[in-house]
């Protein structure tokens, strides 16, 4: 592909002085005049301009004067022959056919004609606009809106195609030759490369390389994007290119309302009128900033649909009309708009000209290019705003009048009062808020404002692309139709209330969001599968499924709650029970052998053992360690009778190999958990044994935690929860595994004299959810955020324990819970917790929403007729759990284990709950939709008797690092990092405001009315 570059050089100093004088005189006048509704028609201007424009307005009578501040004729900008009397003579004709598609035309393509169509086209803008606006033109050509280098760079780094986190690809090659390249900026960008036929066909990066030119070349200033002239049905996409992309307004439907008689007013793809504007509304920005460039959606309280979600005029919580060809989520509860948008502000009221048009430097990413910050207008807790951006430039529309600060909208002219952070924390000031002052203190000085003040954070964990060589697709740069049709809009998980934090390039803690972090599938020309949900790896050897720091643009005054940072290890990337994608293999343990399973996610009943390995000793329990980057099994740890631990090498999955048998002195191994560098064994009356598996083939015991009867463990580092049989729930701090410390012990039966029966435990951090606090949605509320332990308590049923203060647990077993978790002589052996985005019903009867579910495996009934069932409970409000009606299918066999299995069967994510049965896989229940239809798929394997345990390989998409601070997921932005273990511990051990719930002496919640009712649907 020929490389071209635009050498950006500057006019002579004398020329610059002359034109500066003109601009200084004319620009303010032009600004005022162009904002008026009544502008002089071009007829009057042509009279003044003389014979150069006469012929044009003969046909284009009524056309608006686009540049009233300075006398310009039509041909000054457009070219053509003003003396001609017919269109053939007057217009510049194309010297070659213009393709009627979305491709990016070459830089030197038919310049005269392109200038005629749009003089602000970047290919000709220097000659058309640059004479007067040379400085701005220079900047725009090097701006991110022109190069999109950051947009392109992440994917190349994530797939190991580049080793630099500083992106250097753009739409066209550009050099910065002005001799002023500040630190962090580039001297040049190269044109984005395309598919390389020499690449290995079985590698994800080979197929990824075809995506940018085919799917990512719509949103920049070198083309009009998807809204090619005349193309119908792209409401919300129609825009210009070059300077006109921003400075010329288009209607949603792309039709002209100009007074120009010659324009076809029925054909989409024309500007609203022949006018420039500098009062650029949000609607113009969102011609590009939609879809995966999602800030334009979030700002307005919109979000992309979750796959399969109904939407449209009849569906509450979604938009009523198609925009960009789709409907969006608009849910007052789930996706409230940014408070600035709510106040009537527009994008450019915050974003400066340098933000949008560049500052003359080739910045690689938004991180560096954008100069506006919250503090620019709102000041800091130490001082009020100094009216400048982070780059030291004046914020032009921000003003100070004594102690009052206000911003004048560049679009509406309205005046907006700007509260100062300093005033909010100063007692006695009218803006003082005690709660805010308590939070906005020096210890939070390293936080970005929007870390706490983002209302909601949407994360589509797992983003799937597909490339199919049975079809061709247009390469938008080369203009060639090449093999490989790509799709990039396939989302796996969807969630709206998560929070992940890390450091950004400025060394400040910011929210991290899922970026372009992909799984990839590919088929060859014969339709054979080349890749199936393959995972990328960066040159650093880490997973390319990344999150990056992000200003989400959902700013709300109602901040996140303290515990969401200070009691949630999940926030720092240690993972959760959610967002785990089941992979292709699994393992099962029988009393004599280890089975390798081929998991058929499309038809679970066809999951089958493919190999059986004789362990040579009676086996009790096991677990599997997986590699942190690709989630492939590496080793199995099997506790056998006699107290030994077998270590098996699973490098060859179909043929495991025992590498070591270690006498560990285990007494009664029940469950094993491998996480990070440690193996935790729930060893019955032997307590919990912790082994170091940093050298996986040589586990060494580091400590023994004495317990009453450890039946199961769950880890949300540093807290280890133990289902401790007759003693209830034990909580330990294992931040130092060699010296664990007891934290609390919960008697799950409270004042009842019966001994506990804690058999199974899950830990789960429940983030706050937003809801509209008034009918207009002007204010939002938040549900409580909590660290929850859900415990299967055998004959005592279920207990949910609030461990938000691990040293002061609260058992949420109020009246509603007692009534809800009521069974007929029930024996609750196992449970699982999982968050599901429930797809609503067509027609909107049941609204789409995210819920947290508890699945309970319970044996019930009279003697001689005891049945096992899986019962489902909505614990989105854990104080008031709700039983899901008609969803308690019978399951067979039963090891007491419940597993959640998430299978991405394109284009939908399916959720299953699997009850591992003694005779095989057992029963799988599809819980993708709620209320669940209780569709149970029974799967049994011949020849599997006495299943003791089941392990399914899972790719944990939200586990970014391990407990020792070793990254598993890379970060594709420079100078960004996760919190270190010490930093995490400091945050997690910080005191937080006490809750006001009342409990009895045993920690049981006394009154449900003490706990605010969170909004659930």
């Amino acid at each position, binding site marked *: 592909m020929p490389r071209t570059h635009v050498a950006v050089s500057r006019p002579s100093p004398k020329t610059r002085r002359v034109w500066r004088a003109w601009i200084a005189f004319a620009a303010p006048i032009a600004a005022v005049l162009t904002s008026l509704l009544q502008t002089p028609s071009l007829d009057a201007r042509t009279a003044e301009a003389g014979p150069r424009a006469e012929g044009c307005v003969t046909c284009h009578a009524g056309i608006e004067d686009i540049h009233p501040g300075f006398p310009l004729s039509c041909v000054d900008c457009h070219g053509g022959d003003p003396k001609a009397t017919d269109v053939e003579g007057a217009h510049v004709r194309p010297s070659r056919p213009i393709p009627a598609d979305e491709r990016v035309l070459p830089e030197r393509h038919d310049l005269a004609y392109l200038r005629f169509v749009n003089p602000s086209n970047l290919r000709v803008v220097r000659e058309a606009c640059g004479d007067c606006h040379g400085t701005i033109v220079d900047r725009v050509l090097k701006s991110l809106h022109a190069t999109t280098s950051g947009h392109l760079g992440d994917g190349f780094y994530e797939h190991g195609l580049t080793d630099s986190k500083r992106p250097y690809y753009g739409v066209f090659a550009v050099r910065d030759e002005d001799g002023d390249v500040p630190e962090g900026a580039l001297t040049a960008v190269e044109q984005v490369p395309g598919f390389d036929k020499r690449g290995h066909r079985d590698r994800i990066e080979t197929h990824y390389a075809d995506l940018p030119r085919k799917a990512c070349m719509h949103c920049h200033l070198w083309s009009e994007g998807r809204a090619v002239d005349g193309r119908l049905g792209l409401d919300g996409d129609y825009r210009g290119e070059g300077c006109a992309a921003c400075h010329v307004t288009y209607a949603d439907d792309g039709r002209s309302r100009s007074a120009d008689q010659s324009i076809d007013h029925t054909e989409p793809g024309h500007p609203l009128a022949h006018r420039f504007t500098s009062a650029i509304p949000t609607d113009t920005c969102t011609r590009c900033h939609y879809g995966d460039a999602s800030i334009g959606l979030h700002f307005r309280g919109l979000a992309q649909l979750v796959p399969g979600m109904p939407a449209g005029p009849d569906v509450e919580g979604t938009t009523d009309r198609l925009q960009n060809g789709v409907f969006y989520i608009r849910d007052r509860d789930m996706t409230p708009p940014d408070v600035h948008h709510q106040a009537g502000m527009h994008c450019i009221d915050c974003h400066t000209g340098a933000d949008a048009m560049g500052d003359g430097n080739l910045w690689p990413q938004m991180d560096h290019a954008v100069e506006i910050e919250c503090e620019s207008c709102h000041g800091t807790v130490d001082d009020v705003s100094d009216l400048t951006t982070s780059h030291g430039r004046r914020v032009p529309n921000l003003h100070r009048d004594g102690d009052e600060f206000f911003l004048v909208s560049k679009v509406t002219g309205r005046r907006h009062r700007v509260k100062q952070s300093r005033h909010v924390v100063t007692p006695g000031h009218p803006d003082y808020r005690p709660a805010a002052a308590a939070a906005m203190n020096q210890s939070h000085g390293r936080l970005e404002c929007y870390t706490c003040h983002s209302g909601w954070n949407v994360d589509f964990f797992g983003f799937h692309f597909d490339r199919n060589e049975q079809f061709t697709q247009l390469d938008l740069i080369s203009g060639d139709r090449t093999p490989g049709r790509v799709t990039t809009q396939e989302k796996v998980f969807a969630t709206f209330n998560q929070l992940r934090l890390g450091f950004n390039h400025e060394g400040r803690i910011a929210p991290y969001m899922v970026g372009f972090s992909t799984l990839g599938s590919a088929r060859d020309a014969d339709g054979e*599968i080349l890749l*199936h*949900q393959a995972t990328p790896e960066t040159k650093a050897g880490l997973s390319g499924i990344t999150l990056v720091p992000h200003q989400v643009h959902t700013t709300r005054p109602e901040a996140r709650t303290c515990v969401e940072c200070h009691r949630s290890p999940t926030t720092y990337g240690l993972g959760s029970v959610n967002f785990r994608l089941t*992979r*292709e*293999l699994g393992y099962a343990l*029988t*009393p*004599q*052998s280890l089975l*390798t399973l*081929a998991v*058929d*996610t*499309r038809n679970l009943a*066809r999951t*089958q*053992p*493919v*190999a*059986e*390995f004789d362990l040579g000793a009676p086996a009790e329990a096991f677990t599997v360690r997986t590699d942190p980057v690709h989630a492939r099994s590496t080793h199995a740890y099997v506790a056998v009778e006699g107290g030994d631990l077998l270590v098996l090498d699973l490098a*060859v*999955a*179909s*043929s495991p190999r025992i590498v070591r048998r270690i006498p560990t002195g285990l*007494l009664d191994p029940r469950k094993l958990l491998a996480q990070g560098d440690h193996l935790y064994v729930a*060893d019955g*009356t*032997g*307590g919990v044994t912790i082994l170091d598996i940093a050298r996986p083939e040589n586990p060494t015991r580091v400590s*023994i*935690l*004495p*317990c*009453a*009867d450890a039946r199961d463990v769950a880890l949300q580092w540093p807290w280890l929860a133990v289902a401790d*049989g*007759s003693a209830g729930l*034990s909580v330990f701090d294992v931040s130092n595994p060699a*010296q*664990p*410390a*007891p934290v609390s*012990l919960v008697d799950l039966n409270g004042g009842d004299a019966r*001994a506990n*029966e804690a058999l199974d435990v899950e830990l789960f951090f429940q983030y706050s959810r937003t809801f509209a606090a008034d009918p207009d949605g002007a204010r939002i509320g938040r549900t409580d955020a909590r660290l929850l332990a859900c415990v299967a308590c055998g*004959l005592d049923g279920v207990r949910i324990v609030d461990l938000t203060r691990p040293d002061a647990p609260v058992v949420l077993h109020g009246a509603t819970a007692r009534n809800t978790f009521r069974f007929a*002589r029930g*024996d609750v052996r196992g449970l699982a917790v999982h968050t599901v985005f429930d797809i609503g019903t067509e027609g909107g009867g049941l609204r789409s929403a995210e819920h947290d579910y508890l699945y309970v495996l319970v*044996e019930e009934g*009279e*003697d*001689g007729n*005891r049945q096992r069932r899986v019962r489902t409970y909505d614990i989105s409000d854990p104080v008031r759990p709700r039983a899901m009606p008609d969803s308690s299918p019978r399951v067979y066999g039963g090891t007491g284990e419940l597993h959640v299995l998430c299978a991405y069967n394109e284009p939908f994510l399916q959720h299953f709950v699997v009850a591992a049965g*003694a005779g095989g896989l057992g029963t799988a229940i599809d819980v993708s939709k709620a209320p669940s239809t209780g569709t149970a798929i029974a799967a049994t394997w*011949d*020849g599997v*008797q*006495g299943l003791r345990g089941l392990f399914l390989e899972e790719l944990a998409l939200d586990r970014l690092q391990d407990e020792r601070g070793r990254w598993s997921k890379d970060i594709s932005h420079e100078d960004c990092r996760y919190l270190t273990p010490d930093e995490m511990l400091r945050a997690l051990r910080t005191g937080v405001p006490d809750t006001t719930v009342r409990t009895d002496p045993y920690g049981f919640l006394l009154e449900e009315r003490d706990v605010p009712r969170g909004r659930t649907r």
Partner: protein
Amino acid sequence: MLRSALVILASLGLAATSFAQSADVVTAEAFARLDRNGDGRVVRSEFPGSDAQFRDLGAGADGVVTLDGFRKSPFARRIAAARSRNEAEPRPRDDADRQLGERIDAALRLDANRDGRVSRGEWMGHESHFLELDLDGDGDIDRKDRSEAARRAPAAPDLDDLPAFRRELEPVDKLLDRFDRDRDGSLSEAELREHRAAPAFAWADRDRDGLLSAAELERLANEVRARVRARNLGKARPAAYVVPFSTWDRDNDGRISTAEWKGPAYLVARIDRDRDAHLTKDEVDRYVRSVEGTTFHERFDLDGDGRVTLEEFAGPPSAFRRLDRNGDGVVSRAEG
């Protein structure tokens, strides 16, 4: 000593009395419901059921049912058993007292300085658990506490004393129905003599009162069930269903149709890989190998060439690709 014995006897008496009383309450409530006119007797005209059912109520020679007679009737016994079934816990809880000894044994592993005791400095668990195990309260967990735990634990039956059973026991209420001759709701050793569970009497009689209550019988039945199943689990090598192919292939077309199939119905779907309602020899062979084979190649290398192709595997292609480590389209012996 005498005082302790008297206390124990009184407790046992109270326990028995309380059980009898609760059964009494149940039967009295049931009798009151039958006695429609409240005169303390139930005559035939008060009872809406059949003659046979009325006889079951324990009527005397005069055809009248009194409370005493009702208490001894089969009907009343069934009601009491049903009530205890519905209210009693379906299985015994773990014996926390018996676990004390095991826990002390486990705790002694924490004796890092090998001085024969675990001090608070060596203890990493909850303080309350330490106090729980330090039975003599001397500030250490040691062998003296272990002895004390053994002394305190209820007479723990040695599980090995339970004789082997080849099959599970009948339901408890049927046992009582058949063998409880004196209708006291429990079985004495004499009453159980003729049943195969007789050798387990001592093991089952936890409270050593010479009687097996419904709860004790339930515990025995559960233990027998668990042992029988555990013994059967995982012992035998799984065996595939034997398909006499040539016998069933009556039309000799090399396939067994669903009409020709004479085996269990569910197996057809299991064997019929291509869902054409016919079972070929190849499909049957594949089924047998999937059940009886152990290694990957035993199961899937149908043609015995040392390489398993995707066609031979016939499982999910995504799993096959994971096993095909060198990506050459086959899983060779070298790869597993």
